[in-house]
């Protein structure tokens, strides 16, 4: 008995140390200089906690645990080595896996304990299972959309919000019935299946531009369901890890919604597509635009002393980031001060654009946040927009009828010269016309981002 007690103490100690390491891990992530230490702390905590758990005296069968750990590792390694452009879908997929784990454990716990489950316990168990299963399918849908297996366009239909709310209400209702009558075991499968459907329905109407918010929100749900699992299993470690993950997801969702000037409810129930079609209005005769060749663009860039580059997801789609780095090098060598203005929603998940540029070896201290850049733009000679559209649209500042009115933007129109690399004059992702293109100081650079930038680079290094 004594021996058993001390083993329990050892296990609890590993959990306690793991918790501390997890908190330190996130704390060290605050700066790029200490961030890798943070990953190490997280890994150490994880290994410690798993080792501690394996010491658990109640474990009678190690065979399946070992097989599962190996299989999970085999699946995890390729998922850790995807391309950087694929990180958003990988992240969505891992939210799905996390939610799957939580839902399965919750289901097993229910059938092991039913019908003798105290009301509070049943309430957290319901929360665990509902959040877990809706996050599972919702994240799979998000991953499918990001991977472009599923159509990226928002799919909307009449009465969609009503259907969704009704589904959620059903699931919660069943949860409440089970809290009061935990012996109604037949109801339990419905409490999994309905949220599974709800998760699909929730993500169907959401378009690609809203993915950063949705991923963050699903991240938050995954965290909260894990915390609920912690309550069920009475594991403080899991409660804390879940709470950290949940609050992280929530903070990111708030930042993302603010960056798009939309509320959560608007993202979830608005369906950007609906607003666009009504906001489009009658097609007007397009005013003339000025365009320029790569040679002209290179000459203007070389003559500038301060350049801000505003990259958007289009740059990543064109795989132009490495050419952009070459351009950055060529300009820096000529003494031009080059910085990058990163809008919070650039890319397909929070911070995605920074990762893509860092991958192309652009130093992170040149990657500036929107507020920093907007302060500098009036003193900037050239603002070069590559593959970004809506985040530079001045209509968001001035045109109250614009669907993106009020969204914080990068004020590139305040630079002395604006250059926009774009395939054609076709409207951007959200289908909104951009008055920036018709300004006198704007030069349109028509072409594929990668080819155009490489022509500029050739000119900068050749004409030198």
């Amino acid at each position, binding site marked *: 008995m004594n021996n058993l007690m001390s083993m329990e103490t050892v296990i609890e100690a590993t959990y306690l140390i793991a918790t501390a390491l997890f908190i330190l891990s996130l*704390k060290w992530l605050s700066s790029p200089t200490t961030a890798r230490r943070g990953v190490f702390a997280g890994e150490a905590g994880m290994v410690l906690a798993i080792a501690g758990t394996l010491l658990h005296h109640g474990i009678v069968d190690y065979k399946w645990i070992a097989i599962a750990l190996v299989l999970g590792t085999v699946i995890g390694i390729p998922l850790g080595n995807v391309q950087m452009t694929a990180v958003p879908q990988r992240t969505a997929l891992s939210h799905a896996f996390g939610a799957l784990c939580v839902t399965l454990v919750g289901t097993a716990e229910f059938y092991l304990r039913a019908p003798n489950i105290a009301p509070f316990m049943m309430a957290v168990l319901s929360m665990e299972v509902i959040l877990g299963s809706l996050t599972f399918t919702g994240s799979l849908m998000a991953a499918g959309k990001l991977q472009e297996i599923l159509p990226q366009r928002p799919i909307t239909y009449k009465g969609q919000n009503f259907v969704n709310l009704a589904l959620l209400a059903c699931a919660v209702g069943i949860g409440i019935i089970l809290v009061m009558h935990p012996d109604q075991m037949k109801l339990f499968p419905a409490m999994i299946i309905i949220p599974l459907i709800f998760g699909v329905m929730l993500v169907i109407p959401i378009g690609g531009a809203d993915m950063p918010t949705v991923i963050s929100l699903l991240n938050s749900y995954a965290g909260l369901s894990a915390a609920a699992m912690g309550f069920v299993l009475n594991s403080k470690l899991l409660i804390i890890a879940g709470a950290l993950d949940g609050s992280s997801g929530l903070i990111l969702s708030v930042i993302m919604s603010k960056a798009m000037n939309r509320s959560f409810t608007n993202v979830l129930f608005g369906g950007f597509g609906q607003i666009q079609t009504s906001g489009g209005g009658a097609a007007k005769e397009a005013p003339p635009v000025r365009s320029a060749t790569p040679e002209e663009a290179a000459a203007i860039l070389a003559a500038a002393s301060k350049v801000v580059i505003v990259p958007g997801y289009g740059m990543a789609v064109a795989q132009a980031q490495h050419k952009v780095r070459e351009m950055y090098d060529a300009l820096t060598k000529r003494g031009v001060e080059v910085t990058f203005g990163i809008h919070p929603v650039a890319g397909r998940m929070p911070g995605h654009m920074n990762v893509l540029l860092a991958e192309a070896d652009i130093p992170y201290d040149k990657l500036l946040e929107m507020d920093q850049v907007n302060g500098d733009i009036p003193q900037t000679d050239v603002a070069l927009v590559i593959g970004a559209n809506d985040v530079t649209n001045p209509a968001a500042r001035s045109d109250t009828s614009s669907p993106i009115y009020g969204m914080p933007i990068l004020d590139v129109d305040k630079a002395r010269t604006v250059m926009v690399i774009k395939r054609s004059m076709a409207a951007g992702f959200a289908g909104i016309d951009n008055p920036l293109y018709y300004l006198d100081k704007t030069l349109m650079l028509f072409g594929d981002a990668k080819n155009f930038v490489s022509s500029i680079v050739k000119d900068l290094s050749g004409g030198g």
Partner: protein
Amino acid sequence: MKLDLITSLYVFMLAAFIGFEIIRRVSPLLHTPLMSLTNALDAIAVVGAIILAGEHKMGASPKDSLAAVLGTIAIVAATSNIVGGFIITDRMLKMFKSSGPKKP
């Protein structure tokens, strides 16, 4: 049992506050690695799955079999998150370089 739940609620609340304070300080530069790291840490749910799978012998009773099967699948899912999450986070963070010390 009652007391455990209350303590758990306190723990949850304090952890949520700590989470908010720490994560608010993370630079937007690192929001993608932040999400993949919290995701990996969240997969600590594997400890619950391990106990579930380990305490119940496959075939001992229908309930035991169910718990063992679901627990085993849950371990696979969580482990793939742990391994994949840490690998990709580290890969991303390795790429962030400052312009200060110029490499040749």
